[in-house]
């Protein structure tokens, strides 16, 4: 089986990832709901994962895919911890609006 990238081209994947990554960044900036912000970060991580796989194919190398596993583990851990923090914020403030987190400033 030939390299699929011959059909699509690595650039296309790069652009896709970049745009996905930027959408993630946009989400982080655009929304005040912490959960959506988390989701945006997940989008960013996924954009990278996608690119990893593309590069893995590009290099015909398994390591890229292996790295995606680690990346997933990290994402999972982050989400777990993030949600735990979020819950305690919600418990104390009754809201998960990140714009309300303005006690610390100056």
């Amino acid at each position, binding site marked *: 089986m030939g390299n699929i990238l011959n059909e699509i081209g690595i650039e296309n994947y790069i652009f896709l990832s970049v745009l996905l990554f930027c959408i993630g960044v946009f989400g982080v*900036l655009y929304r005040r709901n912490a959960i959506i912000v988390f989701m945006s970060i997940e989008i960013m991580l996924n954009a990278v994962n996608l690119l990893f796989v593309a590069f893995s194919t590009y290099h015909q190398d398994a390591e890229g895919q292996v790295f995606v596993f680690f990346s997933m583990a990290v994402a999972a851990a982050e989400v777990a911890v993030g949600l735990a923090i979020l819950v305690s914020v919600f418990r104390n403030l009754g809201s998960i609006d*990140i*714009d309300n*987190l303005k006690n610390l*400033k*100056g």
Partner: protein
Amino acid sequence: MEMNLAILLLLSPFVGFLFNVFFGKKVSKGFSGTIGTLTVVVSFLLSVCFFAQLNQNGKAFEFSLFDWIQVGNFKLNFGILLDQLSILWLLFVTGIGSLIHLYSISYMHDDENMHKFFAYLNLFVFFMITLVVGSNLLVMFIGWEGVGLCSYLLIGFWYKNQDYNDAAKKAFIMNRVGDLGLLIGIFILAINLDTINFTDLNAGVVALNKTGGNQALQWAALCLFIGATGKSAQIPLYTWLPDAMAGPTPVSALIHAATMVTAGIFMVTRMNFLFDLTPNVQHVIAIIGTITALVAAAIGLLQNDIKKVLAYSTVSQLGLMFLALGLGAYNVAVFHVITHAFFKACLFLGSGSVIHGLHGEQDMRKMGGLRKAMPITFWTMMISTLAIAGIFPFAGFWSKDEILMTAFHENKTLWIVASIASIMTAFYMFRLMYLTFFREFRGTEEQKNHLHESPSLITIPLVILAVLATIGGAINLPGSTWLNHYLEPILAGKHEEHHLGSTEYMLMGIALVGAIIGIVLAYSKYIKQAFVPKTDNEIVGFSKTIYNKFYVDELYTATIVKPINALSNFFRTTLEPALSKVVFSFGSVAYGLSSQGRKLQNGNIGLYLFVFVIGICAIITYLFIAQ
């Protein structure tokens, strides 16, 4: 042996000073005074010894005590030079000094700080000796400043009176102005000649003059002369001397009449080889001297404080001496210094005796008729007055006449002005005598009841000085010019003797007549018309200007003292805080930025991310897109 004697000569008054400082309070007043006097007498006797020795072999005696300062290419030693000039000065400094010490024992007997008085006096004599015997300019400078210090201490002796302290301060500071000039003069010489030893300077100056260094020499001479104006109270630095009368009268006699103020003349005479080569400076000296003589005499005409009159008279006489110096007649100037020392000391001591008798009264308007009560004082003062007025055959006649004669030969204008000053001198001196001793007493009843002649310790010095004032002229009579010969080794330049021709006799006659005119005028005004000077606020017109000393003090205050003080206030209140603010402003700027920055740090995660992303974009753009 000689060296030890010289050191003893120098240190003897210092020992007296130390004794009086540390033990003066513990011993009786009389004892402390006696010690003070004796130490000076020792110096006097030693001076006489040296004088005798010098007369025998005619060789100057110079030695170095120890290395002192090393600057530039030369080492300064602490050296002593005993030659004709310094021994001459030593003689009358220690001689008159001894007399005045003696006088002071009695005069100051009532003062609680008498031991200090003697300490200061001894210290003064010590410094004066240092000034005189120093073998280089800098050792002389020690004495020069030292006597200034003692002058300061003694003028402000009655320290509880702040006016006296002001006078003392003024004296010291004005002296220091001159001292700076002197110092600069020393620098110029030192830089150009690499030496400031008197003996080496002579040759050096001549050599330098030949190699085209006249310009430097002129500046040096001018600066030295500025130094002299400070110490010898010449225009423009003379105003301290009348104020210095705040000190006890013996001080005025010793320091401000006989010895310290002649230091300028001593210095110029010492450096005569320099001044001889700088005729321009000599002209300046002559002119300044003459103007000083005239101005001071004019002010003296209307003063009412007995000591102030004498003070201005001193200034005036010093002016005459500078005239002589300016004309290159150093020997004449020295001659007048000596005679002046005799009669002026006598006059001051006499006035002290009067003041003593009147328990501190100094205003002549409140005196009068003291002739009867204080005969010795009167007669001695009368002799001295005749001497200062230039009446034949008293000492002053000879010396003053020499000056006028020299002036006549050199420059007629100066001669006329100097003559006028002499006439004025005769006038105000007799005015003083008339107001003080003649007619009836104008003081209070109580004073009148206590009028008495002063004790013998006071009168003995008066008598001795009066005698000297009478015969002192003998040392340099026309025709028998001992002093001129004596000073020949010192005075390198040629000095023509005034042959007593008809011109000279005529000049003597004119001078004598002038003096008599002055006396007569005074007589007619104060004896015949029985005029008593008005109180201060009644004086009007030009005489008010004169009475107020031509407002010179006020002028100095307005042009120098006040601006400096104003400047000081300005610096203190405006410039210093402003400078300080400049430094603080850096801090303020930082603080201001900090306040602004805190607004940016507003706690908003969105903003943080925003800046974060902008930062990333900027870096990436700069690295990969921007060319």
